[in-house]
């Protein structure tokens, strides 16, 4: 089992975008390396209810990566996102020409056992600065398979997505923050004509709703936007029309889960895709980084899967 690679400055910054998000979501993150991708993953157990993972193509992060393992050259380990963040920030601050990442085993003293670390070393001319991030692992084949299962379950089952640009995604995030003061649960409605609704209610506040119309729908074949659609009547009546005619999809979510999922906004995405799974049991978020990646639009992504609350809303 070996892992050794050269992180470019850009690569370190990519990882550093996500480490603070994982830090806020939970105290432990699993890092999975394969020759093609790097995945940072937190399962629902670690985050308190939602699955979240960042998916990066190896060549966005590493200029050179050599790795071998008995498990199809996959290597996974668990570590604390705060420790990873500290190490990465340290490396970025040094502005070194080269940062090497390696899996190592070290013993603190002659008597103690050798423990595994993910080591980052900044090499700059004559100076070398080295930081160890303690890890639990490498994980065995079964654990790796379990992680892969979580990753693969994301994103596959959504018939259509609504595409929110920077302004819209920031507005959605703020809306959810404000609605959180009113209610513990929110309803989210999406339509194939590019409308998104977030609504909450509690006590004498019978309805508090936010509407976004004119969002792009993906894939293009699913787009049913009609610019000639009659849209008089106000937010509340349009939403009532959508629900009563059954043309949209509606799910209820815990507002805390949604707030936590939207922490991904802090990673400075270019846009956010939102969609409801076909069976109506998950609400999925995909944060994309578009023009910010070197290779192509999807070489970096951050995905969140939020479970839908059962129909009974507690009063």
């Amino acid at each position, binding site marked *: 089992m070996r892992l050794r690679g050269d992180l470019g400055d850009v690569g370190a910054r990519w990882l550093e975008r996500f480490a603070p998000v994982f830090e806020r979501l939970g105290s432990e993150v699993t890092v999975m390396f394969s020759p093609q991708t790097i995945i940072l993953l937190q399962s629902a157990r670690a985050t308190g209810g939602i699955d979240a993972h960042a998916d990066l193509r190896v060549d966005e992060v590493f200029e050179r990566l050599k790795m071998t393992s008995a498990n199809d050259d996959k290597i996974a380990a668990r570590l604390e996102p705060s420790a990873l963040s500290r190490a990465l920030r340290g490396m970025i601050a040094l502005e070194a020409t080269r940062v090497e990442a390696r899996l190592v085993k070290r013993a603190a003293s002659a008597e103690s056992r050798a423990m595994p670390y993910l080591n980052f070393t900044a090499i700059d001319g004559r100076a070398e600065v080295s930081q160890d991030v303690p890890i639990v692992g490498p994980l065995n084949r079964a654990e790796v398979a379990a992680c892969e299962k979580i990753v693969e379950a994301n994103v596959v089952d959504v018939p259509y997505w609504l595409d929110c640009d920077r302004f819209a995604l920031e507005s959605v995030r703020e809306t959810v923050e404000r609605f959180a*003061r009113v209610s513990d649960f929110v309803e989210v409605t999406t339509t194939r004509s590019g409308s998104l609704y977030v609504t909450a209610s509690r006590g*004498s506040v*019978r309805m*508090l*709703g936010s*509407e976004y119309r*004119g969002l792009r729908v993906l894939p293009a074949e699913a787009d049913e936007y009609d610019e000639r659609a009659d849209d008089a009547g106000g937010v509340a009546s349009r939403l009532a029309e959508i629900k*009563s005619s059954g043309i949209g999809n509606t799910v209820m979510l815990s507002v805390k889960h949604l707030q936590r999922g939207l922490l991904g906004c802090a990673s400075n995405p270019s846009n956010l895709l939102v969609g409801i799974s076909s069976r109506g049991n998950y609400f999925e978020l995909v944060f994309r980084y578009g023009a910010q990646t070197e290779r192509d639009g999807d070489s970096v992504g951050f995905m969140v899967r939020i479970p839908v609350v059962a129909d009974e809303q507690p009063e």
Partner: protein
Amino acid sequence: MASDDSWTYALDVSIAHVRAFTSALSSLRLARRQRAKVRADASGLAIATSDDSKTCHASANFRSETFRSYALDETAARMASGGGARGRGASFEIDLAALIDVLGAFQGKDGDAEARVRWPSRSGALTIELECARGTGERELRQGVCAEIMPEVSAEGSAETEMSFRDEANAFMMPTGTLKEIVDDLEWPSGDVDIEIDENSLKFSAHGAEIGDLTVDVDVSEGRLTEFTCREPSVSRYKYRFLKSATSVGANFLGSGVAGGGDDTVTMTRVSVSSVGFLKVVHLLHLSRNRMSFTSGGINESMVPVTFIVNPVEDIDDDADGEDEE
């Protein structure tokens, strides 16, 4: 769902500065759970609150000119208010905390936004709406926010405790921020506050049994205060928490406080004491920082007076240990 063409709202107003409006409403909160009475007539909207003991009352008066648009339909208002012959206009009660939280959802990122408020909807609710568009590319992104709040049912037989203040004896005027600071400082002794006024002095003091005394002496010599009148020397005592509520105004109203900058940049408060010791505090808040819009009458269009009336604590007794009755 039919459009709203066939439905007439009793009250249909557009608020130009939601943030300032919400901040003014927040100052009316005297308790964590607060019911507010909303009264609308042709001249404007008054929102009033009082605390459970009915010894502290607050109200904000939004004249129709302080809104971007204001419309009251008398017929619909009479029907909505239960057809009682009690007078013109519309009135209903609302959960103030819920209203403040909901208005928070209408504030734009850079601070301000407009909202349309109407009452009652077909279901009897107060509705608030905001719509805006941002065109980028061929498809315009349109955003909207809406809210519906059900009014509170008036408790049966609850007496109308109107705010009343008569026979003003003494009065003074000072910047709102200054008054707030004085009252904030008086929190330390943890006791009721005495306000002592005579021809040459204005003193605020508080005495805390195990803590100590604090007195704030305000310089009332010529020209220091915008107004200072003393018809009969008075000493009156008030519960600290009511005085604090009566002087806590949102920071966004306190103005830049430019030294010597003149009264139009600083929010002012007028305080008066009646002959039997009732305290009236009136803050002259401005919903808009834009001072350019002075009407010919000289009154700033966006001015909203927020008034507090506080009952005095009975039996001022030097031996009293200043304990708050609950």
